[in-house]
């Protein structure tokens, strides 16, 4: 009995080897993002990559909340949007210059001064902090309500979707103060730097790449911490965790709030990369797209979710350039196929191959292993 179990023990990677591999992975990612990509890509393509990396930042949060915590966050658009609008509001005020109203307010509005809720965003520090803290605050309020009422599974997903739709519709209705359907467009400067200058666009790309790596490091720490283990326990058996003396609502809330903060930062950095934020970028469809990337790559795997998000965003650009009408169908198909046939995403293929190889390697010394594998 003990003999047949021993290979299982050795199969589980030691923490030490694990973190060495992670460090090598981070180094490789840094080389790719800071060295190879800027050399290999044109300014235009690098700009697109910056946009994809923002999607990947949202996916990092989804990996934590959905992959590890089982919360199907189909409404990350809300938090992405809050971050994006907080940033864009500040940049629009800065673009207009002191004493002037942002251009769209002069066009559509009758107001002669900034609405009261715009005024704090004139302060760059307030705006920067708000891009992350505002989504986290909203998530904390929503989440404590949702999780204490024990709203779970599909109901949680539907509620998230409804909130996203409501937020987008509200934005569209406030033409005079939010730019309505157009959103906040034509953003020129980023804290004093001219965004039309390719050098500054590169700088924005580097900021985004650094932020992504930072979020990945943060998520990795959370996933491997005791909290990360507890989160998986809550995902797999919430009731059992309750009997151990924890309140699962709090455990889920932390993951939800952190994911919201990550989506907010992604939205904030998306604005200087693309120069616009609008309801169409934060509504139901983009919210689903955030999830699809993570699902295809592997929601429980940090690297899988990030690469999946970048890959799907890239495929969207590539395919919608060629076949604009077909993309939506292809995307839907991709989501269904991933969830139905490969619930762990592409990342789970790596694990499968590795396990098969390990099984083959240890087949001769211990024929009992495959039994343990099957279990």
């Amino acid at each position, binding site marked *: 009995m*003990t003999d047949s*179990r021993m290979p*299982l*023990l050795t199969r*589980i990677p030691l*923490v030490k080897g694990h973190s060495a591999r992670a460090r090598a992975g981070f180094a490789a990612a840094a080389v790719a993002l800071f060295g190879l990509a800027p050399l290999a890509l044109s300014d235009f393509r690098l700009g697109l990559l910056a946009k994809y990396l923002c999607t990947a930042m949202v996916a990092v949060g989804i990996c934590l909340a959905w992959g590890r915590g089982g919360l199907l966050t189909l409404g990350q658009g809300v938090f992405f949007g809050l971050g994006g609008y907080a940033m864009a509001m500040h940049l629009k005020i800065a673009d207009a210059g002191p004493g002037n109203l942002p251009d769209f307010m002069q066009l559509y509005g009758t107001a002669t001064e900034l609405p009261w809720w715009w005024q704090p965003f004139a302060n760059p520090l307030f705006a920067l902090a708000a891009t992350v803290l505002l989504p986290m605050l909203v998530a904390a309020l929503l989440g404590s309500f949702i999780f204490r009422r024990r709203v779970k599974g599909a109901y949680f997903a539907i509620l998230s979707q409804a909130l996203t739709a409501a937020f987008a519709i509200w934005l569209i209705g406030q033409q005079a103060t939010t730019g309505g359907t157009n959103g906040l467009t034509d953003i020129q400067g980023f804290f004093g730097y001219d965004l039309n200058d390719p050098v500054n666009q590169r700088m924005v790309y580097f900021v985004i790449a650094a932020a992504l790596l930072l979020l990945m490091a943060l998520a990795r*720490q*959370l996933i*491997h*911490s*005791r*909290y990360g*283990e*507890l989160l*998986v*326990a809550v995902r*797999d*058996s919430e*009731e*059992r*965790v*309750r*009997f*151990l*003396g*924890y*309140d*699962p609502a709090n455990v889920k809330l932390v993951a939800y709030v952190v994911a919201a903060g990550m989506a907010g930062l992604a939205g904030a950095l998306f604005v200087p990369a693309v120069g616009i934020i609008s309801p169409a970028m934060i509504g139901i469809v983009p919210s689903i797209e955030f999830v699809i990337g993570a699902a295809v790559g592997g929601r429980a795997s940090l690297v899988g979710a990030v690469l999946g998000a970048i890959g799907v965003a890239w495929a969207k650009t590539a395919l919608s350039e060629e076949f604009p009408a077909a993309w939506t169908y292809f995307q839907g198909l991709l989501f269904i196929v991933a969830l139905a046939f490969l619930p762990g995403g592409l990342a789970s293929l790596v694990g499968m191959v590795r396990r098969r190889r390990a099984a083959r390697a240890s087949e001769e010394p211990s024929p009992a292993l495959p039994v*343990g594998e099957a*279990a």
Partner: protein
Amino acid sequence: MSELSGLRIRQLRVSFDGFKAVDGVDLDVQPGDLRFLIGPNGAGKTTLVDAVTGLVKAEGSVLFGDEELLGRSVHKIARSGIGRTFQTATVFEELTVLQNLDIAAGAGRGMLTMLRRRKDVPESVARALETVGLAELADSPAGTLAHGQKQWLEIGMLLVQDVRLLLLDEPVAGMSHDERQATGELLERISEERTVVVIEHDMDFMRSFARSVSVLHAGKVLSEGTVAEVQADRRVQEVYLGHAAAGDVLDTAAAPAAVQEA
């Protein structure tokens, strides 16, 4: 280890849509007792445990030591030192045995400890691994454990949780004879420092290890005492008439029937 406490239940009532699952139960479990709750299916044994642990709403009073448990939420009752297992072992299958135990040990941990990685095996976890005999399997995913081992892991989780009252729902169901024996001895050791209540259908197991027995029937306590006293009680024999022709299910001969039922 904090001092032993007993359980004192008074006029406990639980009803589901008018059906009285528990109908005025009075029950005293002395500190350090190894009490068995037996009774036919539907007698209200599991519902009683559900009520004590906060899973279902109940009327009456449940005192553990001096603390009133009724009206508290599940996780707060758990934090007062009361732990339970379920008829089907529920462990976190994707986590290792060690991780399962570590989580069970951690309800009182602060934010900073939670956000850090587990560097070593906490002493209470190491002790529990030895006590329940799973030390060699510490790094195996709990999902790969055999049925009996999962039950032991659950008991181990209650130990690291440092509960003072263990409520075990059919812990030996589906176990082999040797595993039952090992489980019984484990419970005897545990009850030296903690109060243990076991719901069981296995009469052999009950006879070998119970220090005291309560028989539940139709939501009420029918009889209470030592194994011999309960066995001699005519009302108990009548209740079990439907199950065993001889009328004395508590006798060795009838045990297999009771096992099948479990």
